[in-house]
């Protein structure tokens, strides 16, 4: 019925499209832009698997209509790495401490964690648990995720850096 123009920036690239009003942002990112890293878990705003950064703030992409993101700057998990080959400090810390298993909640977790680290250089365990409190994980019990975010914060502050060539990958 109702189609609308949409122009936004996604992971640094300008994207334009025509979308139905009822298409959510997460479906637009996944189906239209084929950025399938952001996942759908509940479609009613509870699980957080769909989290993205919208103008720098973490939001649930299943609770936004795509058309509402017109003019916005969006970052998805695909936009977190510094380049095509590498991983961000946060992503690498997740890998170092095995802060994921099935990988389904992981993009949302990374977004929530990245938003935290962007705002808070030295988060406490409580801060971390709070930041990911809206992202459900069924595999990990959260401990390795919390530890990985703390490790990333340390490394971003210049401490506890990985040794060269020590780990696989």
């Amino acid at each position, binding site marked *: *019925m*109702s189609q*609308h123009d949409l122009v936004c920036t996604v992971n640094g690239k300008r994207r334009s499209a025509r979308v*139905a*009003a*009822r298409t*959510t942002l997460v*479906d637009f990112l996944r189906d239209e832009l084929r950025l399938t890293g952001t996942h759908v878990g509940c*479609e*009613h*705003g509870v699980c*957080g698997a769909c*989290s993205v950064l*919208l103008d720098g*703030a*973490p*939001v*649930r992409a*299943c*609770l*936004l*209509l795509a*058309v*509402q993101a017109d003019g916005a700057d969006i970052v998805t998990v695909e936009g977190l790495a510094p380049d095509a080959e590498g991983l961000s400090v946060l992503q690498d810390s997740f890998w170092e401490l095995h802060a994921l298993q099935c990988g389904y909640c992981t993009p949302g977790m990374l977004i*929530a964690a990245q938003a935290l680290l962007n705002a808070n250089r030295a988060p406490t365990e409580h801060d971390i648990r*709070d*930041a990911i*409190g*809206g992202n459900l994980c069924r595999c990990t019990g959260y401990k390795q995720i919390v530890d990985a975010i703390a490790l990333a914060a340390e490394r971003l502050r210049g401490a506890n850096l990985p040794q060269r060539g020590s780990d696989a990958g």
Partner: protein
Amino acid sequence: MKPVDFDYERPVSVDALCRRLAEAREDAKIIAGGQTLVPLLAMRLARPALLLDINRIAALDGIAAGDGFVAIRACTRQAAALAHETVRSRAKLLAKALKHVGHGQTRNRGTIGGSIANADPAAEIGLAALALDAALGVRSVRGERTIAIRDFFRGAMETALAPDECLVEMRLPVWRDNAVGTGFHEMSVRHSDFALAAAAVQLALDAGGVCRRIAISIGGAAATPLRMAEAEKRLVGTRLEERDIADAGALVRDAIAPLPDPHASALYRRRVAASLAERAIAEARDEARAA
């Protein structure tokens, strides 16, 4: 869970919004933060023919400190309100309540006005607003009016708004007393869940530590948030000692007639509401004493 098809418009001003509301009436719904509406759309429980997106109306965003009040425009994000210096210093009770609203991610989109207009019996913002005797500015093509918050919540998810009216602003009176304290306690099953019960308290002590003024509101225990007039009366003029607070708790318990609920018995809900009220009163007292 995909919504039904609908038309979508972005009115550029409050006037334009009101005109469209008057034209479309029940077929249109306002979308602000969307944190409550979009799940309803996804579940097809909300089936509007037209969505009016108010997120770009500049006049609906912002916080201002006036003479004896704080004015919050309806489409102000909850996260912005929580972080705002004026709210933190002059509307502390609202700031405390906001910490419990959903989760950080939902507060980045959810709005103050959206929560008020939604009128969930357990909603924290409305509860704090009720304790603070907020005044709500409302507009339609027929003009503006102010609704006192005591008259605003009519039932669960039901307000005094006419179908063609929109919420424009919430004004929170600021108490001029010297020693003001606030307390907010809620009980939810998990950390970020909707509250089964919540208590919001603001009080003022005189120079001798006697309670001069107190507002107690309870949420989640009835179809709307409620002010606890009897408990308030009991506490005015006292030093808010343990026995005073316990009596007030008993009055709260007796004032509540919780709706039958498969999840939680009336006995339990009354006890929880009373206990939360007592905790919030104690917190407010301690804060006022330290002020």
